[in-house]
């Protein structure tokens, strides 16, 4: 991300990216401690350090485009426009949450915002995205679906079947691999001989590209190109976004498999700080602008937590509504 790239865009657009990424970080940090305190039920998988992938991709999508997500969905949801309040109510199990308190962290989503409730099975969202792509094509709508998955998912059968079918039928699906180098605690090198996950695209006859997933503008530009190719009927694209989770795989994970040096290196290159440092090289942005955004976002999250904590739970009468199996 160079100082030239940053000058191509409107200030408001860039500050919007910063705000969205910081919203994800602050949401995740606040939620992390609510879980550790034992205030919030269930378990969580968080995305601190991976904010640029979610924001970069979702910013390239229209409101009526769709995403599918994973067991680590909070960032994707916030980036696609699901409200922090409806998500916090959901995490607290409240009936006014985005999935009426029945989804929780791992099934968070909002169809009205273009996000299928998240699918926690590794690779599980991929065939569904292919199915949505087929529906868009048959209905002749210009919509696109972006499906997020991790490095681990690319060695699952669902990945092969989903991406191959999308390829043969030129479906409008952007396959977004967030390569954070660890499938839970297992390094990606232990599960594939490929140095580059994007190389898998060649096996399906589609275009693949590896992008710095901590550079929000690089992600945005790559996603924009991929989305346009999909809209033009040229078929799916595989984007590999290299990033790093600077928190545990799940709430109890102390990350002892991440070498300290490696972790520190990525922490120093985490996407929000990195973007902030380039943003202030513009004449019309200073640290005060960023600070104002951060404190406003903190307030948003704090108020959303208050609402979430006091939200009513579903009643027994709600037990069999919105349940399909």
């Amino acid at each position, binding site marked *: 991300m160079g100082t030239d790239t940053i000058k191509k865009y409107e200030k408001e657009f860039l500050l919007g990216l910063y705000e969205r990424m910081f919203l994800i970080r602050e949401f995740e*940090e606040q939620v992390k*401690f609510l*879980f*550790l*305190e*034992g205030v919030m039920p269930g378990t969580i998988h968080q995305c601190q350090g991976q904010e640029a992938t979610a924001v970069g991709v979702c910013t390239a999508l229209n409101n009526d485009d769709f995403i599918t997500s994973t067991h680590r969905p909070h960032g994707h949801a916030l980036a696609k426009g699901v409200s922090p309040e409806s998500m916090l109510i959901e995490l607290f199990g409240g009936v006014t949450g985005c999935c009426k308190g029945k989804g929780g962290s791992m099934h968070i989503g909002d169809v009205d915002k273009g996000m299928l409730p998240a699918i926690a099975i590794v690779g599980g969202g991929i065939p569904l995205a292919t199915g949505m792509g087929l529906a868009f094509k048959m209905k002749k709508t210009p919509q696109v679906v972006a499906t997020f998955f991790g490095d681990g998912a690319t060695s699952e059968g669902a990945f092969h079947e989903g991406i191959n079918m999308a390829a043969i039928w030129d479906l409008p699906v952007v396959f977004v691999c967030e390569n954070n180098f660890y499938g839970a605690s297992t390094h990606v090198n232990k599960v594939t001989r490929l140095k580059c996950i994007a190389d898998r695209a060649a096996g399906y006859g589609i275009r693949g590209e590896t992008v710095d997933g901590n550079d929000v503008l690089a992600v945005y530009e790559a996603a924009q190109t991929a989305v346009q190719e999909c809209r033009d009927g040229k078929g799916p694209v595989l984007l590999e976004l290299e990033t790093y989770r600077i928190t545990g795989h799940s709430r*109890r994970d*102390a990350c*002892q498999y991440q070498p300290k040096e490696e972790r520190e290196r990525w922490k120093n290159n985490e996407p929000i700080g990195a973007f902030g440092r380039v943003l202030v090289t513009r004449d019309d942005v200073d640290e005060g602008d960023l600070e104002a955004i951060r404190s406003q976002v903190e307030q948003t999250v704090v108020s959303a937590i208050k609402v979430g904590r006091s939200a009513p739970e579903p009643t027994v009468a709600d037990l069999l509504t919105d349940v399909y199996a």
Partner: protein
Amino acid sequence: MKVKMKMPDLGTTVDEITVVNWLVEVGQEVKRGQALLEVETDKATMEVESFVSGTLEEICVPVNGVTTTGSVIAVIAVTDV
């Protein structure tokens, strides 16, 4: 405001968690997410992070002391609430 920080659920299979080392002294400022202490469980030795930003007022479990999930381990005076 004073926050009583409780030992988080570390996913241990036994109840006992031993404090190995305090990384912050009483009177020192701490930031949310900063490692406060090291503990040893039946699974591993790990750091426990502060839930809040503020000043460490009291250490409730000494080094080598044994505690359990949900027990108060420290009192932190929160600065900006």
